[in-house]
């Protein structure tokens, strides 16, 4: 690389109470950090909001463009100011690509002939991008799991890379000074039905405690969980900050992620768990993990020495039984889990692969334009 590359990240919302606090928004934060760690890239995040503005956060420049969409919903926002803002960038990474925001941004970026990369973060399934094949306008696609990639395979034929992560493994790390309580099972997720927390409570045996960490987004479900927890050793932490969460990762014995494609109310859930980031964070903190066979979750635990997959209540009961009696995992599982996350999902690992992908896309784009005119 001979000079600094300018990369624009487009996202319909940014990780902040002023915008939206969700996994997709946090992903953009992490991605920019991962790229920054590699060096050689100047990045700017563009998003839409109620009014124009700019701010700096963690050394990154954010540009908020006034939303011009008449449609409701964050992922339906857009701004024509992108036409003026984007020229000069070497590459544009469009997050939440399968939304109106993504489709609109894609049309502009392609019109400006800037190399583009798209990523679906689960915010939509826009038919213009999928059935209409607007997704083919990307010069490359980053999927956040093999599962996510599989959802796009029929619609996208170009460069496609799977990058699961990144996780900040320096932040999410074990604390040798903190004692672990092996009987403490930890579940970290928003309190919504498709997270399948009910399945964990239902299978929880006597002798194990369960701490559920996450904001409540579905009150009836929360009430249901509380009723199910009656008589069991279950604790809800609905307002944990980052520090509290980290402390729980460092002091618990087992992490469980039980998301489901069919929730307890019988509702089918599309694209459940494109990437289970909390599972990776837990493993980075040295926790063995048990995950359901939903979405991307099985990909996250490729080694049974530190991670197991369950498909239903009986299997989860069996796993809890083996865990309670010390049959699984063997000693050292936590260290293996952390080593795996560092190798495959850390900021460095993802940053290096992502920047290499960016370079590949920019290079291919340049060659394509030369070839098609020759």
């Amino acid at each position, binding site marked *: 690389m001979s000079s600094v590359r300018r990369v624009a990240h487009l996202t319909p919302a940014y990780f902040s109470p002023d915008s939206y606090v969700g996994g997709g928004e946090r992903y953009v934060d992490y991605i920019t950090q991962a790229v920054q760690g590699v060096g050689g890239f100047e990045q700017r995040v563009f998003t839409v909001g109620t009014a124009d503005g700019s701010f700096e956060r963690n050394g990154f420049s954010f540009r908020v463009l006034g939303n*011009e969409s008449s449609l409701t919903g964050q992922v339906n926002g857009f701004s024509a100011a992108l036409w003026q803002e984007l020229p000069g960038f070497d590459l544009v990474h469009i997050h939440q690509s399968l939304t109106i925001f993504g489709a609109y941004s894609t049309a502009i970026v392609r019109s400006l002939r800037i190399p583009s990369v798209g990523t679906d973060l689960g915010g939509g399934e826009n038919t*213009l991008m999928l059935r209409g094949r607007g997704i083919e306008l990307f010069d490359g696609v980053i999927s956040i799991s093999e599962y996510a990639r599989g959802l796009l395979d029929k619609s996208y034929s170009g460069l496609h890379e799977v990058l699961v992560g990144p996780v900040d493994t320096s932040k999410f790390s074990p604390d040798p000074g903190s004692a672990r309580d092996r009987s403490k099972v930890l579940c970290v997720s928003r309190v919504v039905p498709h997270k399948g927390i009910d399945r964990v409570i239902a299978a929880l045996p006597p002798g194990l405690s369960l701490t559920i960490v996450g904001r409540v987004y579905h009150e009836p479900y929360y009430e249901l969980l509380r009723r199910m927890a009656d008589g069991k050793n279950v604790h809800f932490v609905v307002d944990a900050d980052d520090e509290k969460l980290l402390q729980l990762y460092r002091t618990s014995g087992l992490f469980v992620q039980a998301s489901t494609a069919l929730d307890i109310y019988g509702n089918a859930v599309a694209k459940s768990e494109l990437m289970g980031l909390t599972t990776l964070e837990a493993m980075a903190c040295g926790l063995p993990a048990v995950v359901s066979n939903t979405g991307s979750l099985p990909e996250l635990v490729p080694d049974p020495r530190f991670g197991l997959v369950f498909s239903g209540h009986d299997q989860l009961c069996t796993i809890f039984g083996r865990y309670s009696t010390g049959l699984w995992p063997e000693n050292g599982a936590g260290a293996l889990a952390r080593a795996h996350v560092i190798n495959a999902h850390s900021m460095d690992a993802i940053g290096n692969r992502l920047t290499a992908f960016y370079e590949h896309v920019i290079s291919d784009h340049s060659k394509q*334009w030369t070839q098609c*005119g020759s």
Partner: protein
Amino acid sequence: MRILIVSNILPPKVLGGYEIACGNVARALAERGHEVFALTAAIELPHTDDPPWISRGLSLHWFHPTEVSDPSVKQWRLHQATCSDFSNTARLIAAVRSFRPDVCYVWNYMGIGGAGLLAALNAADVPWTIHLMDRIPEEIASNTAPHIVSVFGGTLHDLFAPATVIAMSEHLLNEIAESAGLRFTGDVELVPGWLDLPEPHTHLPYRRDGITRFVTAGALQPTKGIDMIVEAAGRLRREGLVFEVAVYGGGNAAPYVDLVNAHGATDVVRLCGARSQAELFGIYAESDAFLFPTWEREPFGFAPIEAAGCATPPIMTRNCGASERLVHGVHCIKIKRDVDALTDVMRDVASGHIDLARLGGTAARLVRQDLSFARWIERIEAVLARCASRPRNRSAVDDPRLEQLAYLQDMLALQMRFA
């Protein structure tokens, strides 16, 4: 040069001067040795005399004789007419790829999905010149919300930014600035209406036999001031002046027949129907003055220039487009656009108070020297050459995803408008 012409309609179907001018310019460019390919809409009229370089493959969503009452269908048609019709855009992209023009010469795009077409030219980085004979950018602006336009090119200004502009008059440019908020800041050339008359007719003596022969030609519609002419004729008839008015042009004549009757002007006003351009030149040479009390936003007006070229002095609205080229009292008589002013001038002419021979002679000289087609086709050629020479990425034309982009833009616009 390889010149790709895009026009909603080409002769033999004609709505007004726009289509005739496009057809004449296209033919002249081909005759001057340029490789021309013209993409236009399918028409219902026989067109077996078409040269091989005309392709009538576009769909026209405008000027349908059938009226549709369903408002949603109306909206849909309007959207395709002014904003985008993917099938038309795809045909343009295919033409751009196969013909590989040095320049695309865009005429009236009303009815064929203008925003989509212009966006495709921009995406393919094809240099393009637009010939404005009407305020057609306003058709996009007034029928398409800004956030939908933004799918195709940011703002209307951004969409037109790469264009080289030929406009008929300053008046038209000001109209577009006021009505569409679009002020062209790049390469703009004024090319007025012209006279394409290879064999000049000798004008017959003026006011022969003591009769003053007024003539007008154009679509039968209020904007052209036909109503005012009929009313003025009625007044002058009652004053006992000796004159006649011949009205040539297509359109719905019924209301004007009634109007002529209402003003008691049946023996002085004749509704003569449409005539070919060649026939009109002969008619002008036999007439004494050309009446053109057109609306003030008339972009130009070929007809008064053609009449002037035949030594028939125009009596015209003082601030219409063509008035920029003719001097009051030297080549024409300019009037405030109202019936009183028109009546006064017609009275002066019919009373012999105006030296028609002098006015007609100077008007004919001006038009034949300064407003000749031969002169302006050279200027058009120079503008196109200048446009074609601008830096461009020629590989953009071969981007295999141009249709995909056009489709996404078309569908997004539809979703934003109708979903």
